[in-house]
């Protein structure tokens, strides 16, 4: 099998997260691949609709749950629009897993603060479930998640689940003006929500993903809390074609997002040329 050959996957379940964001639960058509398929939190894949092309997303489900993978996407371009036209039972192509991953082993025994904005929760959710499935191996778990409006929050059913758990501290926020009369969460942007929720960086890792502007204004807040740059992890997405270090498209200076990333520390990002 050549390296550009995808596996065939069947759509087992479709969940609408928001008006434009959808989650697929996918299973390998060949059950023997499904049994041996392994990945780690933070890795990505090339998903394809035959006749339309391939598109790059992270695997949004945790590696602790086998037999399927999930991906969440927003209908934006040609391939994501085509994905949206598919129904349960339809076939998609999948190549992966590619790239590096979040250092779960290193995080074990420590507290973790998860910070996500909008659909940036997809890659973070993979780590969250990974950690929650091994809950006793970690200290405090804090999740700070926000979106522009209440309607833009993804994985709502899981937000309720996390809110109900005693071993998770959940802070939900929407931008000012994005709240509804029933909204019980915070009305604040993410940097403010972090400032109000997190009190100490001691013995804690931060995992952050969201729009560039959110990350830009949240990093200084984390630094003020004394999070060192090598304990803040994020994940980057650049346009990719191969995912394998060959097509020459995703590099930021000397760093290949597909091979050296997509997971980077804040310290690593600072050292990169600002071309992403």
């Amino acid at each position: 099998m050549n390296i550009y050959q995808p596996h065939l996957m069947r759509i087992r379940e479709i969940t609408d997260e928001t008006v434009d964001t959808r989650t697929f639960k996918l299973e390998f058509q060949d059950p023997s691949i499904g049994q041996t398929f392994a990945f780690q939190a933070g890795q990505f894949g090339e998903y394809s609709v035959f006749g339309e092309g391939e598109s790059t997303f992270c695997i949004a489900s945790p590696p602790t749950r086998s037999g399927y993978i999930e991906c969440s996407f927003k209908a934006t371009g040609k391939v994501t629009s085509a994905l949206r036209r598919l129904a349960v039972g339809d076939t998609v192509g999948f190549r992966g897993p590619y790239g590096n991953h979040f250092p779960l082993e290193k995080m074990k025994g420590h507290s973790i603060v998860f910070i996500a904005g909008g659909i940036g929760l997809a890659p973070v959710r993979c780590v969250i479930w990974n950690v929650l499935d091994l809950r006793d191996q970690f200290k405090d778990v804090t999740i700070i998640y926000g979106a522009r409006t209440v309607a833009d929050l993804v994985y709502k059913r899981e937000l309720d689940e996390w809110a109900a758990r005693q071993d998770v501290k959940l802070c939900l926020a929407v931008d000012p003006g994005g709240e509804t009369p029933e909204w019980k969460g915070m009305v604040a942007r993410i940097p403010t929500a972090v400032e109000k929720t997190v009190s100490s960086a001691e013995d804690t890792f931060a995992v952050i993903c969201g729009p560039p502007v959110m990350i830009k204004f949240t990093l200084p807040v984390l630094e003020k809390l004394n999070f060192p740059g090598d304990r803040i992890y994020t994940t980057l997405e650049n346009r990719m074609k191969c995912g394998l270090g060959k097509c020459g498209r995703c590099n930021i200076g000397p760093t290949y997002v597909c091979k050296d990333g997509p997971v980077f520390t804040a310290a690593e990002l600072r050292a990169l040329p600002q071309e992403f």
Partner: protein
Amino acid sequence: MTRKFITQQELALLVGNLLAAHTRVIAPVRDEEDPRQVDYKPIESFSQAVFGAAIPRRSMKEFFLPITEVLLSYKLTHEGVKITEVPTQAPPQVIFGALPCDAAGLKTVDKVMNWDYRDELWFGRREASTIVTFLCSVMDHTCFCTAVGLGPEDSKGSDAMLIPYEGGYIAQLVTERGEKLFEGVGTAATEIMISASEDTGKAARAKVEPNLPAIPGELSEWLKQNFNHPVWKTIALRCHGCSACAALCPTCHCFDITDEHTSAEAGTRRRNWDSCQTSTFTVHASGHNPRASQSERFRQRIQHKFSVYPSRFGEMLCTGCGRCSRVCPGGMDLPTIVGELVSLAKSESEVSGQ
């Protein structure tokens, strides 16, 4: 390394035998409409080949990384999608009269094609190919192979190299594949012949060397440290972003992957040549483009060739063939540009050293 003397007739016979056995033979061939121009093309008879006439317009990378190639074909049926894989084994091909810089380029690109994941389509063709280079005699003022550590007599990437000698050639058999191709052909080269072929090589080098001094290894680090240097703002003002340079380059290997329907129910997934010089290369679905201006895209080209690739793979992603300079409609001249960057790096290190 074995060296043999081979007459012109023996070479013609060898090529004739290969063609008779239906082996694909590729050689420089004159363009029918513009006989001054030469292209690498499959030949049907030895007489079509022209050796030492001109630098072929395109490098020979298309015989290893085709301009467009099928990665898989698919069929949409009521039961689901059916995929047909493409074979990764290629039929044998022999290239006669390749330029040493073009052969070296393949060897350079091998490294990225084997970077953790092996590109079997590339290596399928590489392994099925025998490359016979001719010591370069067609260099011009734009060539700078000697500045990137190669040379008109350098056999990097060659299975055999032929050097003209009195009615025939001295064949240097570099690899086993080269030995095999010339098995039973020619006679052992004499000391005089070997010494004469070495002199030919030195004379050829001397023609290229004045074009650009050797690019120092320190350029790679300087480029890394000077990503935001003001020179990038002005260096690419004449670049149109047409990407002709990348199309002709023996080492540019960037590609796109797209699906194309051949009917309502079937089609192919293809790999097509692409280039970091085009404005859409890195555009995200959101519209955000990390390399929004041409100067950023040209910086990427220079950085990739002279810093990123050397730091990843230990060699420059450039063979000094000069095609990018010859084809550029804006007159961007790579040896001049690289020469200026080297001087800039040197002058800055002198200033900081004082």
